[in-house]
């Protein structure tokens, strides 16, 4: 063994058996002394003289043992443990300071890591496939600034075979599948994938095989349609039976054969969806019946298309190749000639962009708010660090004499800095640790907020920690420690130590210079807090205005109960009869006041529109909905003129339509809409039977769009899946069980209806705004609290150092009010400069919020004035306390205490 290694092991051993080694050392020395004494006795010395001679010869045994101990120990490690113990003792001695430091830091860190975990899962984490960097997302460019990510079947099939730059081109579409369970159909999250999807992903199935191009053919493969299921689905649906491959699943009333199980680690090409079932694209006419996107030509834009690059091919080459085939694919797309010509004029072409982390539609929605939030969190963390730094600095000033004494006793400056750094590192690690412990809770809360409750379009974000998150947390802890510790440590140990010892409390002469740094720290704290507070004020004002803007209907106490009727047998009149029975049934439910039906749930981001014209007038875009009898009463939409729909508005009674005010004004500017007709593109005429109030349709932001309502019985759609709108008095939860039993009795084959309160739909539709405003206000509150603590803490420390001086002032006749004003002024200056600086930055930064604000100017003077006022109030309150305390100093005691 190398001597160095042996020595290292020896030291390591000595770490764990320190006590035993000590006693062995003293025993060894005692033995030596004994032998020396015996030798001297033999040489004829007296007992006493021999004893003394032996002792003199060996010298100070303590010093010896020290040397031996040094030999066996890691010097740095020992010193480090001593420093840590010392720091712990110091922190323990001021629990208030420690608690505040830890709490602010934990808050800042948990907010940062939680938001980072969202960013990580949504924007950064690559797909769990080999060579993810080869993945690209394909898009269509038609001259618009934003590329289109939706493809129609002909476009995709046209690109699928282009193998010179791509190994595979594949398409997928998230979908909800109706799977036959023990008691009727159940909705299962799934995805339809093209034949090249799995070959491109290169994932090995847990068992069986994955889907191949042979499965993605009309009518399925040689033995019918095949599906691959997820490991989770295998375990929950099939109880993990080993012979699951070959079993059949009834999906949308058709038989599918399970051919493989996909491992848990693979969650598909969309990181925000975790499909349970992977079905071939060619099964769309069955799965989405009665709709058929597969054969919808250039009218069904339903696919997301991705590709895997050939090794050695870069994006530029791929884009060039795509550009070259674009026109060809466009011309063979079977689109109308007019449309093709129009597209060509807009320089239509395909394009590829990096897709190593898959494609998620929500990314484009949440990228900006998430980064925005990240910025706010960073501000909060910076504030927490600045606050701790200034508190440590103030405390360091109090400890000046202790440090000077230690330096005078021979401690090197490096050693002192190390010790002070350890103190702050300790705070930082503990704070970060606490923050990390809180991260999952905060993260899940944020993810839940972001994913929009339990709605059908909700996404699932995997925010489990990975190396990126740990790395980020470590970086945060490190930066926090350095920010918090280095400056106070460096400041506290500089300067002439003789002066410091001599002066002690009276170190007045350098005050101006030495107090510049703490003041700068406090000023930036106040400025940062003001920025956060005014940002939050802008967001909150906008949210309040959004809620106040008026929806045109009253969502409180309304629930939507959606029924999936698309896979059952009935259609037309018999289906309407079922709806009528549901209507009658729901009316008898406890607490139910009004019941009606609607096709499109307002603000659910779904829509249906068409172009209509009054006879002889211009064509206009009209948003449409098909609704049931008593709809406007149920939704509390005012009926201006005419009548609502009834059950007798059937297909044979002549087509009717109800317009909202905006639409009525658009088609009949002169008024008198009732009884008139409007016609659609196919010259079918609808008779206007009523005009109703404007209600928001797709978006809360902006005024209500022109909209028309048609009776549900006259809807030309096949097997429409409608939602019942029910206005309830009291809790709606009992309706869940009631509607389930009702459906089981009336239409047993359909999945259990999904219930969603209208309030939740409204909240979800503006969840980005809500989340940002909520977080903004929360962060602003935290920053106010932190700033208050900082202002109070630093001023208290500073005043404590001046007790003596203040005592003398009072003894010499200074009025207590003047003393109070003098102390208060110190912070007043800091707060004023900080507010000024913060206001300037806030006003110039506020423009980044523009896209999140609704009817709120980023320069609104009232909002900024309010934010400043709040901050000034908080700062005054925090500064008043030490000032009042200073004015009550007893001059006799203060002077005597020196």
């Amino acid at each position, binding site marked *: *063994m190398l*001597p*160095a290694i*042996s*020595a290292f092991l*020896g*030291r390591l051993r000595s770490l764990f058996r320190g006590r035993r080694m000590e006693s*062995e050392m003293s*025993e*060894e*020395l005692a*033995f*030596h002394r*004994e*032998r*020396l004494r*015996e030798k001297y006795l033999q040489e004829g010395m007296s007992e006493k003289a021999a004893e003394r001679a032996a002792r003199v*010869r*060996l*010298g100070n045994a303590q010093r*010896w043992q020290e*040397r*031996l101990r040094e*030999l*066996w120990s890691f010097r740095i490690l020992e010193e480090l443990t001593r420093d840590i113990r010392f720091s712990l003792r110091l922190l323990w001695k001021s629990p208030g300071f420690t608690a505040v430091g830890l709490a602010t830091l934990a808050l800042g860190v948990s907010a940062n890591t939680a938001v980072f975990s969202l960013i990580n899962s949504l924007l950064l984490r690559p797909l769990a496939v080999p060579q993810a960097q080869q993945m690209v997302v394909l898009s269509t460019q038609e001259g618009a600034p934003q590329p289109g990510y939706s493809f129609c079947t002909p476009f995709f099939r046209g690109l699928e075979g282009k193998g010179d730059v791509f190994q595979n081109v594949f398409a997928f579409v998230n979908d909800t599948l109706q799977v036959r369970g023990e008691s009727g159909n159940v909705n299962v999250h799934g995805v339809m994938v093209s034949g090249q999807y799995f070959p491109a992903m290169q994932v090995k199935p847990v068992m069986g095989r994955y889907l191949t191009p042979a499965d993605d053919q009309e009518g399925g493969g040689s033995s019918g349609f095949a599906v691959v299921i997820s490991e989770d689905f295998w375990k929950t649906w099939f109880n993990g039976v080993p012979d699951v491959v070959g079993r059949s699943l009834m999906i949308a009333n058709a038989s599918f054969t399970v051919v493989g199980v996909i491992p848990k680690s693979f969650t598909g090409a969309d990181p925000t969806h975790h499909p349970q079932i992977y079905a071939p694209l060619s099964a769309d006419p069955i799965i989405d019946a009665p709709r058929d996107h597969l054969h919808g030509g250039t009218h069904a834009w339903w696919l997301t298309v991705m590709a895997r690059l050939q090794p050695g091919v870069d994006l530029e080459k791929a884009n060039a190749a795509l550009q070259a085939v674009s026109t060809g694919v466009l011309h063979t797309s079977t689109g109308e000639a007019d449309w093709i010509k129009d597209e060509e004029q807009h320089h239509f072409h395909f394009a590829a962009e990096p897709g190593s982390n898959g494609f998620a539609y929500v990314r484009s929605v949440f990228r900006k708010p998430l980064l925005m939030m990240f910025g706010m969190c960073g501000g909060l963390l910076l504030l927490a660090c600045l606050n701790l730094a200034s508190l440590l600095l103030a405390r360091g000033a109090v400890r000046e004499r202790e440090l000077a004494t230690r330096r005078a*006793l*021979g*401690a090197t400056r490096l*050693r002192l800095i190390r010790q002070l750094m350890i103190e702050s590192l300790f705070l930082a690690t503990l704070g970060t640790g606490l923050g990390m412990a809180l991260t999952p809770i905060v993260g899940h809360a944020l993810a839940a907020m972001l994913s929009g409750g339990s709605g059908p379009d909700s996404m699932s974000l995997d925010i489990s920690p990975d190396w990126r998150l740990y790395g980020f947390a470590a970086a945060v802890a490190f930066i926090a420690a350095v920010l918090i510790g280095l400056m106070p440590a460096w400041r506290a140990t500089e300067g002439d130590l003789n002066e410091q010892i001599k002066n002690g409390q009276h170190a007045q002469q350098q005050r101006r210079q030495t107090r510049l740094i703490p003041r700068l720290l406090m000023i930036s704290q106040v400025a940062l807090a003001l920025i956060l507070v005014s940002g939050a004020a802008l967001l909150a004002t906008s949210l309040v205005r959004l809620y106040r803007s008026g929806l045109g209907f009253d969502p409180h106490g309304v629930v939507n109960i959606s029924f999936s009727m698309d896979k059952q047998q009935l259609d037309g009149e018999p289906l309407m009869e079922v709806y009528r029975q549901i209507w009658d049934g729901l009316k008898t439910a406890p607490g139910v006041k009004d019941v009606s039906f609607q096709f499109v749930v307002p603000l659910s981001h779904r829509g249906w529109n068409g172009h209509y014209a009054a006879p002889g007038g211009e064509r206009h875009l009209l948003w449409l909905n098909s609704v049931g009898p008593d709809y406007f009463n149920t939704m509390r939409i005012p009926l201006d003129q005419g009548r609502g729909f009834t059950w007798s508005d059937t297909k044979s009674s002549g087509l009717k339509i109800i317009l909202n005010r905006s639409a009525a004004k658009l088609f009949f500017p002169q008024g008198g809409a009732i009884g008139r007709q409007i016609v659609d593109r196919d010259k079918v005429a609808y008779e206007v039977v009523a005009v109703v109030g404007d209600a928001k349709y797709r978006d809360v932001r902006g005024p209500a769009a022109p909209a028309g309502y048609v009776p549900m019985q006259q809807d030309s759609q096949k097997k429409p899946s409608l939602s019942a709108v029910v206005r309830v008095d009291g809790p709606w939860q009992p309706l869940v069980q009631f509607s389930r039993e009702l459906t089981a009795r009336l239409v047993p084959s359909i999945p259990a209806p999904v219930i969603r309160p209208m309030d939740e739909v409204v909240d979800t539709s503006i969840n980005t705004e809500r989340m940002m405003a909520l977080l903004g206000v929360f962060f602003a509150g935290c920053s106010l609290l932190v700033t208050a603590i900082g202002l109070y803490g630093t001023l208290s420390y500073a005043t404590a150092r001046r007790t003596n001086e203040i005592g003398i002032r009072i003894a010499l006749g200074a009025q207590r009010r003047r003393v109070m004003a003098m102390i208060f002024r110190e912070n007043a200056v800091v707060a004023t400069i900080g507010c000024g600086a913060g206001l300037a930055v806030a006003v110039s930064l506020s423009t980044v919020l523009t896209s999140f604000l609704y009817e709120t100017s980023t320069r609104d003077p009232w909002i900024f004035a309010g934010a400043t006022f709040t901050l000034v109030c908080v700062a005054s309150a925090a500064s008043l306390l030490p000032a009042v305390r200073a004015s009550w100093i007893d001059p006799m005691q203060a002077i005597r205490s020196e």
Partner: protein
Amino acid sequence: MIREENTDSGSLLQGTLEMLVLKALARGPQHGYAVAEWIHHVSHQLLKVEEGALYPALHRLEMRGFLNAEWGASENNRRAKFYRLTAEGTKRLDAESQRWARLSAAVAFVMQSS
């Protein structure tokens, strides 16, 4: 907090002492007192090993794996720590004595030159 640093001359002496200690133990396991006595005796009372140097040297050698230490009974039946050369230690002794022979011969050449 005061750090003691070894001077250059100290490390030279240290190396020599370590060689002598290894040599003393080449005859068989010994405790520290016997090592000091043997060196004193064999050197015709010319070399007197300070305890303050001896024990750190013994421990250093033990730590680096040249010596093994175990507790045993001394000649007058007291518990004492006995040091024994390891295989590494024997090798080290050979290397050191060769180095020493070369060094002393060289010094002798220099000193005897006219």
